[in-house]
């Protein structure tokens, strides 16, 4: 019997095999930016549900606020004004964790169990195991995780794993006024996306499409975009992939490190066998304590 409510797919820095018999439903959140009005209900409900409050900021001449993701702002709206064929478009995108199938954060994290990928697709950060090294920040192709200066832990969207674990949708999805956010099985989300894309193409958006980038094995947060050919208009990377540094770490550095550590182990044993235990004189010990 597993100790957790969601089955584990992967754990950071852990090679213990995960239970593989159960095959829970793969879930996804679909963000239809074409029906998003940028009201920030998702932002607010995210903070309310997760008991986080970012500091009250400033206006810097845009609608965006909080201006960026932070340990206390796990999702923010990003607004872009784009002129296309003489018509203005106000492209508004909800930014937050993409819950990649191949998560760069999990792969790069050196702290066991600090990042867990569940079989349903959710990638969750467990701050009690986080050492604050910040490798996940480099590992993420979407620039999502944020390191807290207060507690030295990294935070991001959990896709409301606590809600999903008891059979509820994430808080942001439930609250979305226009239905721009949807949640369900990944397959269902792809079907809904296809309907939306057909509707948009009828309305003159020839390049409408789904953003589910294969470079990270697909994501469990997907976008319907009017201009899927140009995700950069929305501030999304064209072809996101895990940083080569992470690949290097996993591919080459890790076996090397294991070999090095094994070598150190053998050398220590050899040293012990040949020289005996290292003893500290009582005097030195006392000196230290007095100091």
């Amino acid at each position, binding site marked *: 019997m597993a100790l957790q409510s969601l089955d584990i797919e992967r754990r950071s820095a852990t090679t213990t095999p995960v239970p593989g018999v159960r095959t829970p439903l793969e879930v996804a959140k679909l963000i239809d930016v074409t029906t998003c*009005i940028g009201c920030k209900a998702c932002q607010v409900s995210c903070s309310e549900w997760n008991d986080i409050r970012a500091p009250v900021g400033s206006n810097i001449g845009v609608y965006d606020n909080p201006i960026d993701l932070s340990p206390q702002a796990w999702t923010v709206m990003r607004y872009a004004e784009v002129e296309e064929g003489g018509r203005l478009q106000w492209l508004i995108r909800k930014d937050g964790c993409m819950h990649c199938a191949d998560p760069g954060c999990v792969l790069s994290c050196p702290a066991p169990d600090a990042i867990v990928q569940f079989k349903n697709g959710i990638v969750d950060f467990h701050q009690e195991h986080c050492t604050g090294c910040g490798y996940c920040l480099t590992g993420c192709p979407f620039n999502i995780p944020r390191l807290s200066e207060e507690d030295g832990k990294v935070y991001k969207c959990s896709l409301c794993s606590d809600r999903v674990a008891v059979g509820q949708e994430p808080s942001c999805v439930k609250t979305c006024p226009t239905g721009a956010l949807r949640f369900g099985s990944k397959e269902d989300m792809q079907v809904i996306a296809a309907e939306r894309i057909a509707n948009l193409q009828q309305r003159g958006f020839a390049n409408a499409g789904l953003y589910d980038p294969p470079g990270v094995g697909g994501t469990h947060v997907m976008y319907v975009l009017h201009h899927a050919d140009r995700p950069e208009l929305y501030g999304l990377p064209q072809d996101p992939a895990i940083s080569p540094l992470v690949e290097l770490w996993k591919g080459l550095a890790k076996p090397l490190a294991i070999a090095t550590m094994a070598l150190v182990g053998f050398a220590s044993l050899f040293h012990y066998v040949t020289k005996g235990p290292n003893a500290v004189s009582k005097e030195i010990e006392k000196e230290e304590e007095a100091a």
Partner: protein
Amino acid sequence: MQISRRQFFKISAAGLGYSSLAAVGMAPIAAQAEVRQFKLTGAREIRNICTYCSVGCGLLMYSLGTGSKNSKAEIIHIEGDPDHPVSRGALCPKGSGLLDFIHSPHRLKYPEVREAGSKEWTRISWHEAIERIARHMKADRDANIVARNADGVPVNRWLSTGVLTCSAASNETGILTQKIIRALGIVATDTQARICHAPTVAALGPSFGRGAMTNNWVDIKNADLVLVMGGNAAEAHPVGFRWAIEAMKQRGAKLVVVDPRFNRTASVADLYVPLRAGSDIVFLGGVINWLIANDRIQWEYVKAYTNARSIIGEGYGFEDGVFSGFDKEQGRYDRSSWNYELDEQGKIKTDPTLQHPRCVWNLLKAHYARYTPEVVNDLTGTPTEDFLTVCELLGETSAPNKVATVLYALGWTEHTVGTQNIRSMAIIQLLLGNIGMAGGGINALRGHANVQGITDIGLLSTNLPGYMSLPNEKNHPTFADYIAKVTPAPLRDGQLNYWSNTSRFFVSQMKWFWGDKATRDNDWGYDWLPKWDKLYDTLHLTELMQQGKVNGLIVQGFNPMGSFPDANRVVEAFSKLRYMVVIDPLATETASFWQNHGESNNVDSSKIMTEVFRLPSTCFAEEEGSTVNSGRWMQWHYKGAEPPAEAKADPEILAELFMALRDLYQQEGGSVPEPILNLSWPYNDPLSPSPVELTREMNGRALADVPDPKDPTKLLVKKGEQVPNFTVLRDDGSTLCAVWIYAGSWTEAGNMMARRDNTDTGLGNTPNWAFAWPANRRVLYNRASCDPDGKPWDPKRRIIAWNGERWGGGDVPDFKADAAPGSGMDPFIMTAEGQARLFAVDKLADGPLPEHYEPMESPLVTNPLHPNQITSPAVRIFPGDRERLGSRDNFPYVGTTYRLTEHFQFWTKQVRLNAIAQPEQFVEISEALAREKGIAQGDMVKVSSNRGFIRAKAVVTKRLKTLTVNQQTVHQIGIPLHWGWETLAKKGYLTNVLTPAVGDCNTQCPEYKAFLVNLEKIPTIAAGA
């Protein structure tokens, strides 16, 4: 704990070794990978209705503790109610942040007083507060109430104390307020409805018979075309707006936005069309002209259901921008020439052929012939191509099976021509046959959660509950005069003319006011009601305060300091009061108007002698009661927690105050004590009437058996029973009913407002969810969804139909259920004609047909339609306010104020979650203007009008465009209004220091949407300077 250096090395080495091993995936123990525990397991769930806007979303509130005696309930989380037919689990950014409203650090906890000249609040007991306030009120009332006017008519008018009431309060608070203030003789009273949707009632009532949103939120999904103009539904009503998105997704409906700004609604629209703020009637008049010229008219509908064929009297005329009957001296119209030509029987003369030059159709056609596409382009700045596209799209819905709806709000109401803006659209929707249809109508998106209810309850200067007028001293000196003059005579044969029942509604209401003291012999206590002489709207009240004629102001859940126009003059006005009482859950700028806040409120506290009492009240989560959403749904909400510290529910505060006053009158006597002593007060706990008691009185009950007139051996309702509906109300004193339109909301079957069966009976109609006034009708005027023979115009939009014997269907017929097609009865049962009015006859102050007039502050120095009449001749403006108008010489830009979706009025700046989402005051300017002024994104700018100034951040945007109007360049500046000094967000200026104190000609709703400003960049101070 002391750690030696050596021990530290040991620990570090062990840690390093551990993490190195762990890093390569060789963790020695399996750590748990559990998700955060679900935090609501076992929490109590309470249902409520959102307190902010009039979408009326369902809430699930979760509270700490099991409800046991020893636990103190505390709301720990709020989310949407998925069963709610409108919101379906969703909430907007305000609703999502409600938790932080309930727990705002700015909630009021104790009664406080600010003594005259003081700089601080002092905590006092409830007892002291009530005693002192009652003493103030009695002294002022005794000294100043007018018992009789010069003609000897008992008028019982107390004008030296004003009352502002709360459109967010429940109906139960509202009705108790109404009862008390009228007994006291208060006429100088108003609510937020005045400054938001008063023009809606004034426009829709004369057009269709009732002043409310015609359809409902979910019904928007049945539209083929959604026009959003004069409003920004996505911004202000995000959850209701979902049904427009649904129409787009499911039906392929088109969404068109016409607005001065490319706004959040425009971000998801098929077409955005710009126009100059304040030029809506030009645009809409242009549409009327285009529809007529291009024959896009639902002819059968127009001929049968509107007054198109009616002939108007000979005296009517319109010349050089002025309608007939204008009295230049008075600045007012004599409207008698705008009426129908009647035959010998007093019935309207008609011309079925539409040939008569004075039939409404030809007057309409002639009036709008001037509104050509060229004129539209010239005055609105809208590109002609875009204008014509909108005309084509609207024109398509003249087909009986195509329907357009319109969503609007304050973008239309808050103009000197506010009522006429809406009237223009009413005419268009009638020409297209879109009223009464599922997916059609004119959807006035109301503001506050219960502004519909508070309007229904008549908390406006000259109203009584149920859209009856408070008696006027000249027209209605006696009960007989009142009934004779307010009951409309039938103008056509065979019409229902429902207001012919006025006496039943009125007498039943008098029985509620005065109980057993209201008898036939004393005309049901008629003399005790105050009689009005003038409309004491918010602007008038402020003017009287300025003149020092008002001593007291009682403010219940209202923040006039923030929301009245020309805030600098409002501070001056308040400073002249002797006492002010503020009842609110939150700290407001009104209560602290005497505090100096630098540039944003530069007053000398020591010179302000007003005694201010601040009384803490409950918020929505801490009380039960009903609120009415924009679609007229009366929804019940339940209490989830106790209020903070000593805060009390409004009915309790009001009752304690009234009881204290009544005691004083009993003990000491005083001026005009009768209405106070005779007011019916049958509540179990006189100091705290319960919401259930109050709401049952609004529904009404029989005081004696009411026999069935068709069969006197049967009873319609037995003595003591709640009435089932308003048809059983009587004018013989045998029934009591506070708000006749609410009859049916709490019957013998129980609380109909708390019903939760969300079964869809078709087209998204959920008739068993809550209760919709009147009589649970969900689409008003739905008889007009069928042709004269009783067949639905569009079989796919069948909401009711004639089944051979009766009208019936998914909705309750808004008609006499057994009046057969062909009986001659027409669908608009609340008008004396039975028809809707294209031509509003004498119902409006500024003309029977909408005409374009410039805002009082206009960037043009002419009105090309009639250069001799630039602004509306029927505008009422006080001399002091006129002096404060500016001109384009000093204030060259058009300013327009509005709300942001992250905030609700002036409340949510005190709600942390919303302060985070939009923390600082800003204005929006176009890139062109920014270039001209050297302003960059995020610079501080100063926006000033002739009345004051604000400083704010600049949001430079492509979404505002420079328009060419009448051969000149017009820049518009967008000014959101949510800021102030009682705030968790960054301190800001009151936006309304900029706006002019002049109102809509019919309702005096202020012109917040179009005025003149200047813009300056504030030079940044160099570092180290």
